[in-house]
């Protein structure tokens, strides 16, 4: 199947600085695809390249197999939901939503039908006559969405559409957006710097850093099997350990760091004696006065801090080589160590992963 949007080797320089470098992406028809990365990593720029507001310095962009994307913005079948909505302030909700259809010179009757339908879909019936400034943030957001969706574009691009909303509304809108995308089946490319949002909504995520795409995958893949140090660090919380690789037996490799040896499952790379980075998520770490056997990694340590997070507690344990590991312990579990306690901390080899430095 032809991808909805395809970027090959796209690079862009802005103000003498390489903002997007060698980006390859292939976004499938009907997919909810997120671009995730810290502020300033080039997400908006990538989106503007797809929309045609910028032209790539190198590489090519194809929309539904058609390209090269030299067509100016007004001729592209992608619609953008702007970071601050960019609703036309002098037009009513109705006129804003109808604008795109009028540009396509659709018959009046059809415009009326389509606008009504889409306003019902985003639950804005009864607000047709209002001006944007008479709407709440969430309502404006939905107008922007309706305006982008109504012309039935190949792709809708959304640039941090929930960024201006408060936390509660944000959560509600996440669910609504996702449901809307499911129902309409339109391809969404969604930009956000909020990893939780990306994990919760996306079919697939591309993690960006300094203009590059570091990893593309489903939320599970990104979270469970990060491939680079940055991805592991940026998505969720993690423990990172640097060390040298040593071949070990039966599908397990060992990493030596300051005299301690860590076992890592899933082998594969065992060429030996190279500098590597190991990551293990706090929820995979077990802490206790005495741990039972069965864990490939087990170290004695001392609790240095313990922070309360509502449903869980983050326990910081310093182990032999001075490294502090963080462990996520559900509240209400049997014994909760206090700072100063001598404990053991451990995790299975399969929970740890080797990642490449960026």
């Amino acid at each position, binding site marked *: 199947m032809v991808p909805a949007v395809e970027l090959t080797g796209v690079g862009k320089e802005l103000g003498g600085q390489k903002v997007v470098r060698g980006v390859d992406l292939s976004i499938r028809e009907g997919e909810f695809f997120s671009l995730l990365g810290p502020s300033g990593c080039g997400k908006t720029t990538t989106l503007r390249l797809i929309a045609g507001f910028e032209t790539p310095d190198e590489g090519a962009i194809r929309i539904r197999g058609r390209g090269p994307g030299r067509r100016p913005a007004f001729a592209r079948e992608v619609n953008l939901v702007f970071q601050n909505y960019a609703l036309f302030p002098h037009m009513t909700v109705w006129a804003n939503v109808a604008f795109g259809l009028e540009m396509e010179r659709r018959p009046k009757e059809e415009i009326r039908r389509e606008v009504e339908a889409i306003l019902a879909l985003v639950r804005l019936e009864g607000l047709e006559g209002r001006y944007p400034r008479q709407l709440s943030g969430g309502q404006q957001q939905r107008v922007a969405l309706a*305006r982008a969706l109504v012309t039935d574009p190949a792709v809708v691009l959304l640039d941090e559409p929930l960024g201006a909303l408060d936390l509660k509304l944000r959560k509600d809108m996440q669910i609504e957006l996702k449901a809307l995308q499911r129902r309409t089946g339109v391809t969404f490319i969604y930009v956000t710097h909020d990893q939780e949002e990306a994990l919760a909504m996306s079919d697939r995520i591309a993690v960006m850093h300094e203009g590059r795409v570091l990893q593309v995958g489903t939320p599970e893949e990104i979270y469970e099997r990060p491939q680079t140090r940055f991805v592991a660090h940026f998505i969720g919380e993690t423990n990172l350990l640097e060390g040298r690789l040593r071949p070990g037996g039966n599908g397990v490799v060992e990493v030596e760091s300051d005299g301690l040896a860590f076992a890592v499952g899933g082998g594969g790379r065992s060429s030996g004696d190279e500098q590597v980075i190991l990551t293990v998520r706090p929820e995979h770490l077990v802490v206790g006065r005495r741990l039972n056997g069965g864990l490939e990694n087990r170290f004695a340590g001392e609790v240095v801090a313990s922070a309360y997070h509502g449903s869980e507690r983050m326990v910081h344990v310093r182990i032999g080589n001075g490294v502090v590991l963080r462990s996520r312990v559900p509240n209400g579990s049997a014994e909760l160590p206090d700072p100063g306690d001598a404990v053991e901390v451990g995790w299975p080899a399969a929970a740890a992963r080797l990642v490449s430095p960026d």
Partner: protein
Amino acid sequence: MRSRPWLLLLPGLLWLGAFFLLPLAIIAVVAVADRGAPVAWGFGWSAFGRLWDPLVVPVLWRSAWIAAAATLGCLAIGYPLSYFIVRRPKRSRRLWYFLVLIPLAANSLVLLYAWTTILRPAGLLENLAGRLGLLPEAGFGLLWSPPAIIIGLVYWYLPFMVYPVYASMERFDFRLLEAAADLGAGVRTSVVRVLWPQTLPGVVTGCLLVYMQTFCSFVVPDLLGGAKTLMVGNLIQQRFLSLPQDWPLGAALALAVVAALAVVVWISMRVQSRLEG
């Protein structure tokens, strides 16, 4: 100090009260006085009767349409010019803008005088046209005609148009043009349906300023217009400074002008508040 703003305001208020408000009020008083040397203190509406003189009405009419033409001229070149300036890179933008304002700050007669040397018969323009073989037998006859006045007025008052229009364009969020293009609008539709309505308040203010100023301009028609193309400004000046003097008629004329302009201002303020919803 915060509680005593009046101490700071009082000198200015008194000064402007004495030398601005009071003089303006006197216009109304003199308009209903009798003709004398220069004014005889008696009450009467005779000055307003003299407004309907066959010599006065055509002048009022001419002032109205010449001012309208000059306003349209300013808009026609000032609007695209403002767009041009707003789209310059940030650093050079100020410079382009100042280049428009500087002739206003140096609004001297001397520039109008320069226009007379350009437009006069056998002046620079006709010289140039003659060399290019474009000069009609009788010359252009530009100076001392309404077109010369309009050129002069557009020249002198263009900054009054650019100032508010440019300000409204600077406030305009150019992402709205991106949004329009994104939804499939071409360049003409985007400008007409998004940029223009959003900058309309600036346009209204600009037209108002230019119309008010050009309507009773006196120097431009005096230097570029000549005796056959008087505007109301010339008429007022003559009634005050040339013989035979008629101050009440001059004051009545000024009053009529101010009243007419007030109506224009009032209407456009209504329009503007409608625009801003």
